[in-house]
């Protein structure tokens, strides 16, 4: 791969309004980055372009709330998996409760747990990672400024026959 953007670099070009999304185009790399080279954990945590509103009086509390809700979600996910597992175990008559209590993970199991744990932490602490992205790229124009811009009085309708028309093939 030659001069394309680093797929892991979330905000390759800083502008006052965040990265120009077009700059993520793999210009100059005929094949672009290999999808397999993208880190799904970092790609998932990408911040949406646009200034994030704060609702609570203390922005710190807002962040704690966000983290708490991610944890709450993951607890529900884990609870559902345990529920699946317990029902299957009971159904098949495979295990007793003491087998779970005495379980020792081997190296393979431990590595799988570590990989899972990395993704887990990234998911839970997403809000802080996105704060860092905003520091790099700017937080974005306030929404009311864009409302003003996009809502500017409209020009009169154009002539009914634009010059660029071509029939569909």
């Amino acid at each position, binding site marked *: 791969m030659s001069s394309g953007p680093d797929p892991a670099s979330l905000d390759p070009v800083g502008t006052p309004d965040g990265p120009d999304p077009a700059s993520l185009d793999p210009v100059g790399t005929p094949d672009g980055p290999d999808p397999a080279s993208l*880190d799904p954990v970092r790609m998932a945590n*990408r911040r949406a372009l646009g200034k994030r509103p704060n609702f609570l*009086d203390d922005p710190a509390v807002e962040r704690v709330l966000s983290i708490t809700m991610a944890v709450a979600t993951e607890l*529900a996910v884990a609870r559902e998996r345990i529920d699946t597992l317990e029902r299957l175990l009971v159904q098949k008559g495979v295990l007793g409760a003491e087998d779970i209590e005495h379980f020792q993970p081997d190296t393979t199991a431990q590595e799988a747990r570590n990989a899972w744990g990395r993704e887990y932490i990234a998911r839970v602490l997403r809000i802080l990672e996105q704060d860092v992205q905003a520091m790099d790229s700017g937080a974005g124009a306030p929404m009311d400024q864009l409302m003003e*811009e996009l809502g500017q009085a409209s020009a009169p309708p154009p002539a009914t026959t634009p010059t660029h028309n071509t*029939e569909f093939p």
Partner: protein
Amino acid sequence: MDPSLPAQPSWRQVGRHAVFPNASHDEVARFDTLTRLNLHLSQVLAPGVKKAYQTRVEPALAAALGRPPQDRHEVRRAMASDLHYQFWSALRRNTMEQRQQAGRSVVFRQLGTLRDRADALNADAPTLQLDPSVQQPRYQRAVDIHCMPGSYHTEVVERDIAPGANYDAGLFVTTAGMLGRYADGGGQAIVDWLQKHRPGWQPRRILDIGCTIGHNVLPLAQAFPQAEVVAIDTAAPVLRYGHARAKSLQVHNIQFRQASGEAVPAADESFDLVTTAMFWHETSNTAMPRIMAEVHRVLAPGGLTLHLEQPQYRGMDPFEAFMRDWDAYNNNEPFWTRMHEWDLDELVTRSGFGAGSYFETTMQAKVDRALFPAPLGAGDSTQEDYGRTPTWTAFGASKPARPAVLDAAVKAVPA
């Protein structure tokens, strides 16, 4: 499950096709948890926002103003410091961000596989026409629409489809399943309405503007299998994904074409039906008349144009308008607020349709009720989810048929 909540389907029930991402046990559990969270916010906590307004915010505001609040902006400024509203809003925003994160984590870990499948369906297909010279308009680039990182158009890899796959995977979560198995409740509603109001009508050519992944135009293509359907959008990744999705679902009469609604690459009077679904609020005041003028230009005599949107604010109770405006300020939909101020009758009339041709009606998502819930707010026991409920205002206009004598004269003119 809270018995006061509508029955909730699982993400497992979402319709599958070749480019739909696979989800593991835990990924499904995450989507389902976020769906439950959205239902809780709309059904349990949103009524509290109204209660907070009625019991403590409005009385204080009315006392301060010496009159009842007049518009949604007065309500919004007063509500901003209400603790319950603050928490409801913070949670609603955060749930959307979590949904985006969850969708992207599912998509990016299998992007290579999904792209291979899309490539196989898209390669050399004449029904997928991408045009790299099409620019993303400012209203698509200014922010990432509804907090979807990279919006519809950002390409990270060659022949990218990730934005389409993420959008498709998450529609169920945001709408709590109310758009149905293939998120096509809007398109199904349009078909239903056409069959009722234009029975037997067979449009020969159909144009859908701002189609994204084509989820709302598929029912039209299926209902009118003889019709030639053209679906346009400015964003290539959703067109690639939408084209592969349609092919995989055995819908072959749609051409997905990269083009702007402001400059439709089609001859005058070349479509019998022109549609949009939840489209206008993602444009701008400058673009709207341009797009409607194009709709009028490409519509054939005797043709019909029909558009699904959330209701306009005119005449609406200030509190309801304030709640419906939430996405404008807090979910990266900056044109939503001004779009809903438009006099759509005037827009349609000024675009060439002429006075008296505008019509407006109400439509509700048509979905398989055995599996998917009725729209929130539709029954006595459920609560409106402002701005997200699939109960729409549908507006449009017909273009008068050319008198037969004139039509014959036009045809007689040598090309």
